[in-house]
């Protein structure tokens, strides 16, 4: 995969020197399917840097609408935005799609054609010359590990192989940015791991920006360095994965030798916000300071603290807290 095309070299050069740090930016972006319909995206404002961005949200959250708008298939009804420096809705937005790769969630493969034929075809549609497209098809199919079976019709492929064909077609024209929609759908754990490894390699070796939409939080957690949580057409949380996890830092689980009296339970709020109570195991978001001060707090009240566990931050909690900020996680 080394140095196979000028476009590829260009993409790596851009990535290596961070020439285009901002992949996507939008301000008050609003999208409606009809003039009278309620907006599917409600005034989104966001700026995403080059990297792997996880796009999370339940069904109907607006993920697909956002992808359509970013691909230029839907014209924004309000606000402004840009992808790779090209304004959304601008006349040159159609050409922008030759700089973007898209891996759809569903099977978009022609069953009786081989992987090689399909990938070469999509390369041509992206603007590559036929000969270049054929060469690139061989290269990307080798990259995704399908070099042995590239001449077989895809009807005989396993789910994992089909996903890799879709990834290959998204990469064939050396895009600067790829959209992956549920790339690990239907894969077994090993297949998921291998595909996510490929996604990491795509970013690390080719310098391609990645937007990964997934319901599988573990997948996003594994590869993404930025996260956007969408719900009902609004951004509920966005930022680097590290910062979002920090939002949950200081979560501890406390267990006492004897059950707490009601007044002792309410006094727990001195330590921080009580997020839940599962059979005497209190989930507490410590307000500040060293978590071990819980021992001093218990000692002062004559209580015996028999367990203090630092909770590991998990992405599903970030998601749940973003989607349901009022709900007490754990109850």
């Amino acid at each position, binding site marked *: 995969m080394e140095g196979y095309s000028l476009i590829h070299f260009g993409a790596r050069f851009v990535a290596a020197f961070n020439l285009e740090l901002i992949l996507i930016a939008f301000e008050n972006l609003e999208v409606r399917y009809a003039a009278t319909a309620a907006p599917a995206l409600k005034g989104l404002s966001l700026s995403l840097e080059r990297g792997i961005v996880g796009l999370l949200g339940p069904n109907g959250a607006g993920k697909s609408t956002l992808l359509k708008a970013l691909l230029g*298939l839907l014209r924004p009804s309000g606000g402004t935005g840009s992808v790779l420096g090209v304004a959304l809705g601008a006349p040159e937005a159609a050409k922008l*799609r030759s700089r973007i790769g898209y891996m*759809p969630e569903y099977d978009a493969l022609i069953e009786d054609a081989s992987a090689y034929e399909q990938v070469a075809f999509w390369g041509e549609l992206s603007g590559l010359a036929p000969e270049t497209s054929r060469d690139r098809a061989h290269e990307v199919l080798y990259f995704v590990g399908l070099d042995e079976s590239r001449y077989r019709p895809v009807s005989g492929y396993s789910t994992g192989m089909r996903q890799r064909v879709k990834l290959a077609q998204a990469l064939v024209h050396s895009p600067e940015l790829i959209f992956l929609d549920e790339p690990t759908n239907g894969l077994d754990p090993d297949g998921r791991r291998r595909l996510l490894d490929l996604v990491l390699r795509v970013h690390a070796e080719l310098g391609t920006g990645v937007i990964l939409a997934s319901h599988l939080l573990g997948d996003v957690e594994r590869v993404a360095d930025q996260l956007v949580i969408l719900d009902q057409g609004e951004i509920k949380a966005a930022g680097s994965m590290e910062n979002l996890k920090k939002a949950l830092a200081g979560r501890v689980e406390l267990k006492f030798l004897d059950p707490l009296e009601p007044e002792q339970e309410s006094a727990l709020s001195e330590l921080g916000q009580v997020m839940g109570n599962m059979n005497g195991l209190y989930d507490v978001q410590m307000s500040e300071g060293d978590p071990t001060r819980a021992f001093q707090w218990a000692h002062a009240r004559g209580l015996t603290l028999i367990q203090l566990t630092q909770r590991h931050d998990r992405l599903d909690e970030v998601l749940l807290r973003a989607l349901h900020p009022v709900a007490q996680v754990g109850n």
Partner: protein
Amino acid sequence: MRFDLARLWRQKIGRFFSFIFLLILLIQVGWIYTKYLMQTNQAFKPLNEFGKGLFTQGAEFQAGLLNPTMYLLWFLVALVGGGLVARDTLYRVRPLMYAHPVAPKDYLLAKLGFASALPFVILLPFVLLPWAMSLLLAGLQGPVWATAPLRLLPAMAISSALMGSLAVGASSLAATPRAGIGWVLGLVLGAGTLASMIHGLTGIRAVDALNPVMLAEAWPQLLVGVAHPMVAWLPAILGTAFHLALWTFVAARRTRPSEAVI
């Protein structure tokens, strides 16, 4: 891969149609050669005198160069054109296509262009070969007019565009290529039946211009100057415009990006 011609060939149906079209072409060419022999060879003189009464060398003969193939061509267009859009629908390829630098109008024009070019290319030798033979063997006095292609090629273009638009429009309504074939045949035969029924009920002959098969047959006749028994100029223009507009509109609506579920 793109237009599924390989599948057609693999399934032998393409070979069958090639054979039939070739046969028709050979018969037509042989016919012209026979006419030439009868006109130039003295041995055939009595036969020639007899044949003069039977063989038409006027406008009807020119229009007839295309007619024998028309019905078969509709079937071929249904077989190939029926799957053109439906196949993309079945494999959900269209949304992915629009995620590339392909505009919906590019997609539609490519499909319409192919579906119309196919019958045009098949019809081409039926006009050009007899015309060239006639010119070579008998010059301007030959059975095929020297100006015949100037009249027949536009007629072929109109008839082919009619076939192409109907095939693509019908295919866009179907979810599978097989259903697409059914849609094309159903619409072609259904429109013809409907036109005949209305004609029968009302006695208005112009309604026959709703029949796409009749329209495709009428254009070569109208352009070489033969009055078609069922379809006159104005109904032919209106009927063709109606079909072209309707089926292109249907195809455009059914292949919009908003119909593409990502």
